[in-house]
């Protein structure tokens, strides 16, 4: 209950700051030197935040579709042999540094949102894939047996039984992936994508700590709120199928 109130307060604070950043200027003044501006105004913070979120949403959506698809594929009899390959691909996606992906993608795609999307997409695959795999491999055997025994086709079993039961764990994977992407997206600004990274980089270049802090704070707050939001949805789905008793 108290946790909810704090979260609601944080959300209000965030919205207020994004809508009227100047009214919070006094907070950031102590971080500035030589009368530098306390609030970043080159581009509106709200517009940067929205485009930051848009990039993350788009990349996460693509990661989710591909990773869940891969997870489903390698748990079907016909796709089992692709399991090691899928593991390798998603692990490389996670271990290959996003900065390097940007560097490689810019010559091909030019500056802007494209390279950032690719980097976030690759980086986000692994948690979703691993969770999908774990969830689909650990479904209650008696339920799957019953579904088969009742005459559901493979497709019906997947859509009506396996995926709904795997949903809470898959969502947990998406949550991790989204939160990682939120932070990672900031580096997109090095290749001219519109993200909150722009504020941080501007702060670094002009030695203005206020910019760095406000960029970081916004990203951090959004991450916390999204993390909590996902957890609520996961709990609701898990509770519905009796995997979690009411607290």
């Amino acid at each position, binding site marked *: 209950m108290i946790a909810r109130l704090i979260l609601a307060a944080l959300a209000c604070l965030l919205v207020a700051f994004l809508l009227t950043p100047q009214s919070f200027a006094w907070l950031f003044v102590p971080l500035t030197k030589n009368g530098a501006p306390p609030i970043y105004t080159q581009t509106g913070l709200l517009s940067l935040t929205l485009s930051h979120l848009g990039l993350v949403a788009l990349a996460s959506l693509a990661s989710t579709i591909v990773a869940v698809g891969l997870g489903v594929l390698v748990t079907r009899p016909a796709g089992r042999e692709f399991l090691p390959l899928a593991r390798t691909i998603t692990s490389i996606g996670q271990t290959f540094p996003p900065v390097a992906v940007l560097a490689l993608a810019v010559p091909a795609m030019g500056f802007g949102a494209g390279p950032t999307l690719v980097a976030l997409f690759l980086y986000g695959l692994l948690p979703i894939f691993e969770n999908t795999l774990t969830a689909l491999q650990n479904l*209650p055997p008696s*339920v799957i*047996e*019953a579904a088969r025994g009742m*005459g*559901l086709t493979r497709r019906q079993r997947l859509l009506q*039984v396996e995926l709904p039961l795997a949903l809470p764990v898959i969502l947990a994977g998406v949550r991790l992936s989204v939160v990682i992407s939120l932070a990672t997206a900031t580096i997109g600004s090095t290749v001219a994508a519109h993200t909150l990274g722009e504020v941080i980089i501007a702060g670094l270049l002009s030695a203005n700590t206020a910019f760095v802090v406000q960029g970081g704070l916004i990203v951090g707050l959004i991450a916390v709120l999204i993390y909590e939001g996902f957890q609520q949805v996961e709990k609701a789905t898990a509770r519905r*199928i009796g995997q979690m008793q009411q607290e």
Partner: protein
Amino acid sequence: MIRIENLSKTYGDTTVVQPVSLTIEKGHIAALVGTSGSGKTTLLRMINRLVEPSSGKVWIGDEDAATIAPHLLRRRIGYAIQGHGLFPHRTLAQNIAMVPQLLGWKPRDISDRVDELLTLFQLDPARFRDRMPHQLSGGQQQRVGVARALAARPEVLLMDEPFGALDPVIRAKAQDDLRDIQRQLGTTLVIVTHDMEEAVTLGDRIAVMDKGVLLQYGPPTEILTHPATPFVEALIGKAERPFRLLSLSHIGDIAVPGEAEGPALPRDTSARDALAQCLWLGRDRLAVQGGGVVTLEALRTRAKGDGA
């Protein structure tokens, strides 16, 4: 009717079910018993093709099961397993409605059928229809599992240790209910069990398996009085044999004219319970409702398997 002809299953080079042939008459109950790993589940699952037979045939009525697509075959055959296998993300009504839905029943007919089954299994539809499986007791979940298997009025019902996880009191109740419902619907039932007691009380025929071989297939009395091999004899438990035989008859069938003191017992009391009463009360005859008595002498004869 189910006819099994030379049905066998081989994994690699181990044969887990040696060729088995047996017939289960329409409306009868066949109980499959045997030690763990003897191939009961495998035999059962070959009937609805959850396991593809290595050789042999299964006839459901006069249709060769191998000629029906597996998922269509399974929609015609009820299947209930230990641990019930209810879909945890669906309400009880949705669970029961599954196969009728697959078969394309009208929504109206489905919801009528759901209520009918819930009532049949003593679960008030108004209270239980929209509950989730995890909100039920183990015994209730098991009942819904059986109700779900019966939803589309299958001619044949397969059950694999359906009552294995229930406590003895609830289990006895579940067995009684199952027997009543099966009689009422005329379903042909094959039930796998570890429990000889359950096989004797439920089965019209008992099939005894050991190491993939069908050792004996016959009515309970025959299995009890004329076990085909020492293994069968050991499985039925020599010490329990007289009581099992007694549990097969009702006192109404062995009553003789006469008078006895004390309250009269219902005619469908098992001979076993009557014996217990005689011993406990120290009497040698008990009154039977509707006239007549059951004597200790008659019980003794029954316990030896005579006159069955």
